[in-house]
């Protein structure tokens, strides 16, 4: 948590439009020192539309900081200015959402977008959550799939060992087990998609 907004009444003019009296104050703690930005209601809500989450506010903050408190132009470019992102021409097969449209709104189109755009999303996800591996509740049918996967890994290991030891009888048994489990795995993966 770094940015806070608060209502207050002041005689300070909005630092963005400089036309209206500022009614919203944002405070950001930079290296332990609070810095304030005063905005009018309109500019504040334009910068922080509902649902655009905190990172937007963060960008807005940097933008204003650069503009206003902004040291001499050119000399000290804002530290967090992101490099222009390359255009990604990827579209979700299932819902038709182009990746570029996710960049404009914080929403994905459907659950399969996460597969399609995975490698482009993962850094955003890490930024938001700090981690990228789910820990916690798992729906029953996925729990089954995960168990099967784990047993498959185990069996494959055993199979390799058996082959190494030239124990072909055991290897054959293991191969059969792996086959049955793999079939189970693919059938349970399909069932939730119905």
């Amino acid at each position, binding site marked *: *948590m*770094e940015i*806070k*907004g*608060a*209502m207050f009444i002041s005689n300070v003019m909005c630092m963005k439009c400089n036309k209206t009296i500022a009614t919203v104050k944002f*405070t950001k*703690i930079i290296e332990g020192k*609070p810095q304030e930005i005063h905005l009018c209601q309109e500019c504040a*809500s334009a910068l*922080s539309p*509902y*649902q655009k*989450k*905190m990172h937007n506010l963060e960008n807005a903050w940097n933008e204003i900081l650069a503009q206003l408190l902004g040291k001499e132009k050119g000399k000290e470019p804002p530290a967090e200015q992101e490099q222009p992102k390359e255009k990604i021409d990827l579209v979700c097969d*299932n*819902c038709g*959402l182009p990746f570029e449209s996710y960049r404009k*709104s*914080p*929403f*994905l*189109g*459907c*659950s*399969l977008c*996460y597969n399609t755009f995975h490698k482009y*999303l993962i850094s*955003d*996800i890490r930024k*938001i*959550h*700090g*981690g*990228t*591996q*789910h*820990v*916690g*509740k*798992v*729906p*029953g*049918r*996925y729990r089954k*799939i*995960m168990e099967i996967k784990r047993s498959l890994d185990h069996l494959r290991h055993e199979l390799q060992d058996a082959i190494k030891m030239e124990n072909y009888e055991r290897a054959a048994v293991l191969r059969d087990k792996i086959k049955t489990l793999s079939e189970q795995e693919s059938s349970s993966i399909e069932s*939730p*998609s*119905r």
Partner: protein
Amino acid sequence: MMVQNILHESDVWLSQKGPSQHVVVSSRIRLARNLIRIPFSTHAKSDELSHVTRLVGDTIQNCKSIQGFNLISLHDIPTTVRKYLKESHIISPELEKGDEHRLIYTSPNCRISIMVNEEDHIRIQGLAPGLYLKPLMEELDRIDTELIEVLPIAFSEQLGFLTACPTNLGTGLRVSVMLHLPGLVFCRLIEETMKMVQPHCLTVRGFYGEDSDYTGDLFQISNEASLGKSEEDIVDSVLIVVEKIIKKEEEARQKLFSERDLAVEDAIWRSYGLLSHARVMDTQEAMGLLSRIRLGIDRGYFKDLDHLRLNKLMIEIQPAHMEYKTSFKEGTERRDTARADLLRSIFQAPGSNN
């Protein structure tokens, strides 16, 4: 089920006693879930949205833990009623828009609500007075389990429950606690206290969630990250910080009262003066004054009132609540008069002929 009854019940949860109520107004937990393949509600077409409402509706009918819930289609109720439900925290601002195929199932005491086609297909929300996270989480978990074992839920081993916005991935869990912190505000310790929240990946919001103002010294603390931590750990991390803040607030109040800070006493009694005599009052002003009164209760003033009554009042004076109770048509001035009337009736000055 008549909408009337739901409005009647929507604030019942507020009248119940809860732990740490002198500081904690309410606890709220929500889980976000989606169905596989069907576009998220933000992108779905009308027939896809109605497909979701059908699938969820059929499942709910057969869920033991969701019996006796009332169903409202938000598209079919007046704007004021939707606003009312938002003010009571029963629905989200997204559902207040009242688009088609947006439903809400509420438990008989409105403590649990299941929103259908909010930004996610399903959002299960629990509300409780005071600091009441763990039992509330258990209650939601039971309902959630029944739903997700039957419905084709979008889930990935790596990212957990898949949600419309990546900010809700993983557990899909948001735990929020509404705190009343007049002591820390008075002592100018609030910024410092809120800084404490930062390393715990928690966020501070205003009374009505994202981007809302800190009206009436009310602050909402909630978890920021939902992926990478278990449900239990998320609840614990919020609890730990909230308990620290409660302690700080108690200390601040103690300090204010033991030093007999004249400015505080003056602020409390001035608030009382305005509440008991004003003829016109907007929501913002009333919230600020009620906050002082709530502090006064801790000081031992206002024997007829308690924290519960004040919590309820803070909701009752909201615009749509005023409109509904007074059956006035929309109009700020009349609403503000009605609000002042209501407050005068509660804070009647002895001997005055109000």
